[in-house]
């Protein structure tokens, strides 16, 4: 009897884990990649949270709150960079609007967080503080259901996804490419920035959402919550990398890079580039939205300045610095640039913009393959 159950279970496990899909998934990353991922997982999901939660504050290896949130925030940026690499590095679509999808995801989850403030706000009303200030009597229709965690999760995915789908459908259909696409995406971002700045738009105007208290009943500022969010951000980053890796090593990925290199040819082979671009564009938008949702509780605030053009262009620079078309490169680029920014704005605030501007210029001119490309070149040289 036990044997039968055992055999059955093994059969089920074998059949589910040895489907072509799963096999492909696991072969998408080489052995070294899996090892690196495992190490990263160990570090971020086990080591850092333990150190933060278990070690006493004055211990040498204790990681203070400041760093937990800073690194968590940077990992969210890294997720966005991976998404950017998928559409720019692999599909050749330069978007200057990823910040918009990031912000939309943050706002979507922010609505839930605002609801969770409950009666603990400044005005002690079940309405958000800024709504009381505007003299509103109840939540507008688009706030319905946002007090439910699952609904807000769905909104985090649907809001950026739907916008991306509709926008992408019309723009890709008109065969707008390259620089024109970048400009149009920037214009869309700008339009939304203006909308969200309007005080009566229902999203807090120029102050946005802030003063969060809880998630699912647990305090948002507790060390446990911070560690959890940190670990979740790391997990999402790993997931994004794996998903990206799967996509780019699949036939889909090859078609995508073919579209990037010679779209005409791809069409004449019978592929409709519209759906390929639209798929990766919508997926990237959703990934950015999820990153935004992980970002907002760690940073504690979301306001329209997150939709500034400068932020979205910076995403492109993280990707370029890391190395386009490598997935891991942009993630590294995001980490490097944002750590530099943290350091500069404390040490030499006046010089940060000079440094950033110079980085834009020098990296594009001298390091077209980014840091990863540089690393590969150096390795190749050493092998010789």
């Amino acid at each position, binding site marked *: 009897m036990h044997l039968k159950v055992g055999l059955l279970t093994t059969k089920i496990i074998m059949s589910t884990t040895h489907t072509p899909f799963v096999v492909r998934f696991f072969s998408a990353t080489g052995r070294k990649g899996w090892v690196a991922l495992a190490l990263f997982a160990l570090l971020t999901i086990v080591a850092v949270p333990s150190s933060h939660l278990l070690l006493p504050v004055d211990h040498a290896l204790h990681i203070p709150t400041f760093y937990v949130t800073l690194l968590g925030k940077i990992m969210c940026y890294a997720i966005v960079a991976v998404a950017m690499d998928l559409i720019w590095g692999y599909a050749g679509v*330069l978007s200057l609007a990823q910040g918009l999808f990031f912000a939309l995801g943050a706002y979507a989850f922010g609505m839930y967080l605002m609801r969770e403030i409950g009666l603990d706000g400044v005005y002690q009303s079940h309405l958000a503080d800024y709504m009381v200030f505007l003299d509103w009597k109840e939540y507008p229709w688009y706030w319905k259901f946002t007090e439910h965690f699952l609904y807000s999760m769905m909104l985090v995915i649907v809001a950026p996804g739907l916008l991306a789908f509709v926008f992408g459908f*019309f*723009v890709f*259909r*008109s*065969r*707008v490419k*390259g*620089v*024109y696409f*970048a*400009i*149009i995406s*920037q*214009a*869309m971002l*700008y*339009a939304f920035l*203006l*909308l969200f*700045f*309007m005080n009566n738009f229902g999203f807090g105007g120029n102050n946005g959402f802030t003063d969060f208290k809880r998630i699912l009943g647990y305090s948002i500022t507790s060390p446990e919550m911070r560690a959890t969010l940190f670990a979740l951000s790391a997990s999402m980053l790993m997931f994004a990398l794996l998903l990206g890796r799967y996509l780019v090593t699949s036939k889909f990925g090859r078609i995508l890079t073919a579209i990037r290199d010679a779209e005409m040819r791809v069409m004449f082979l019978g592929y409709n580039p519209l759906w390929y671009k639209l798929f990766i564009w919508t997926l990237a938008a959703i990934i950015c939205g999820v990153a935004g949702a992980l970002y907002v509780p760690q940073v504690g605030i979301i306001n329209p300045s997150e939709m500034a*053009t400068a932020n979205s*262009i910076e995403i*492109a*620079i993280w990707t*370029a610095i890391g190395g386009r078309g490598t997935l891991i490169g942009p993630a590294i680029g995001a980490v490097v640039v944002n750590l530099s920014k943290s350091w500069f704005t404390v040490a030499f605030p*006046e010089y940060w*913009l*000079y440094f*950033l*501007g*110079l*980085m*834009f*210029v020098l990296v*594009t*001119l001298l390091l*077209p393959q980014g840091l990863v490309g540089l690393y590969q070149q150096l390795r190749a040289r050493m092998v010789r």
Partner: protein
Amino acid sequence: MYCKFLFRVPSLLKVLRTIVLLPWLVAMFVLPAHAAPLDPELVAQLNADGNAAKKAAIIKFALLASPEAILLLKSLANDSLFIAGENGEIILRMEGERAFDAATGEEVTPVPEDMDQLYPNNRVRRMLHTSLSVLKLFDPDRDERLEAAKKIEDSGADVAFLPVLDKVLKEESDSEIKQTVTFIRAMIGLNSKDSAIRLTAVKDLGESDNPDIKLRLTELTDPAIEVNSEVREEAKKSLASLERRLVIGESITRVFTGLSLGSILLLAALGLAITYGVMGIINMAHGELLMIGAFATFVVHDIFRDHYPEYFDWYIVAAVPVAFFSAAIVGVIMERTVIRWLYGRALETLLTTWGISLILIQTVRTTFGTFNQEIANPSWLSGSVELMSNVDLPWNRIIIIGFAVSVLVLVWLLLNRTRLGLFVRAVTQNRAMAGCVGVPTARIDTVAFALGAAIAGLGGVSLSQVGNVGPEMGQGWIVDCFMTVVLGGVGQLAGTVWAAMGIGVVTKLVEGGLGAVIAKIVVLVIIIIVIQKRPQGIFALKGRVADD
């Protein structure tokens, strides 16, 4: 303005006064004015108890309109009337040290010791000034008459002055003054007891385009306020025709503002269109070139203000070449050090130029400070042209439209009538071929980029006259410039012109109804729709060559 004369509920006193005055007015009107001494009793009434009596006296003197009466009223206005006599019944007029009897005009000697000044209070004073203005309507000098008419238009007048105004209209020949007086008369007539007068007044007001009478006319359509139905009907009609005229005025203003915005956008986007057409690059630092032009103007403005104040009004003329060349120099530096290495890689140039823009903004910030700078318009650019009551076109915007047109013409001449322009157009259309026939493409690149930057500098000069000048001013214009280039297509100036004007006018028209944010979104949606049909822009170069 006419709030003072909203006689919603005529008080009993005022009714009485009008009833009492009317025959007097008629009498005064009918009786010829003669150079005779004034009635002493009437003169003494200037010192009577109560405002009503004083005002009544003033009006009578005004209607008299004799030189003596005018002198009397003027003296009262400049505080040179004094009270003498045991009962305060003699009024003396002081000229320097001499005293004259206000009524007879004879000199009184010796000058009495205890004299009180006859000081009219504010209510009386207002009536006094209006009366003097009304008297001024008979002044031989036309400008004086016009000024007086404008003053009365602003301050309003008592219904008692109606007959005087009728007299003015009969004798007045100047059309502008006549128009103003008709208007005054109509406004006064609205308050008349006589419905026939009110009717005429309402009809007259229908020809006006002054938005301030809207309220008054609207009241007259309300049966609770106006009892006469004929007057009510006429008021409705007049209101409708007034509304029509106001709407026209508003539309003219909006279209003008749209054209003004379009002209500034044209200057701003023209340079971008040229550089994109020639080199295929999108310059994210273009806004900063605008900023440099504006700051160059600011520097020139300060130099003139501090060192050549007598020539201050001409700083803007000096600023034009300074801005032109400073922006051009920055453009040349950008092109030679960075952009030429990225030929053909449009997306990379987008990123590098963004980096350059960050550097430029930070440099200007550290040099001039983060906050906006004050720039004063030269005097010949201030003020406005008033086409209609509600259509006020600022001079500086008119000049800027003219400036944009001249720059456009010059650029067109440069591109289409010079050898350099020929080369630029060749490189735009087919770089490889142009190179093959000997066009120095590298140098043309530099020149084209410098030209684009220089035009942006000129755009900055215009911006300095209509808006704020600060390190981040360029950022607000970059999206609009891009939209213009995307919509208009490259390779032809016409595209940029139509796109810039179109975007400017549509933005302002939508803004009036739905607000600035919706306007921007509407423009964006329109552009997306247009490029669905014509992805290369409205005026794109067609054919197989331009396919990429």
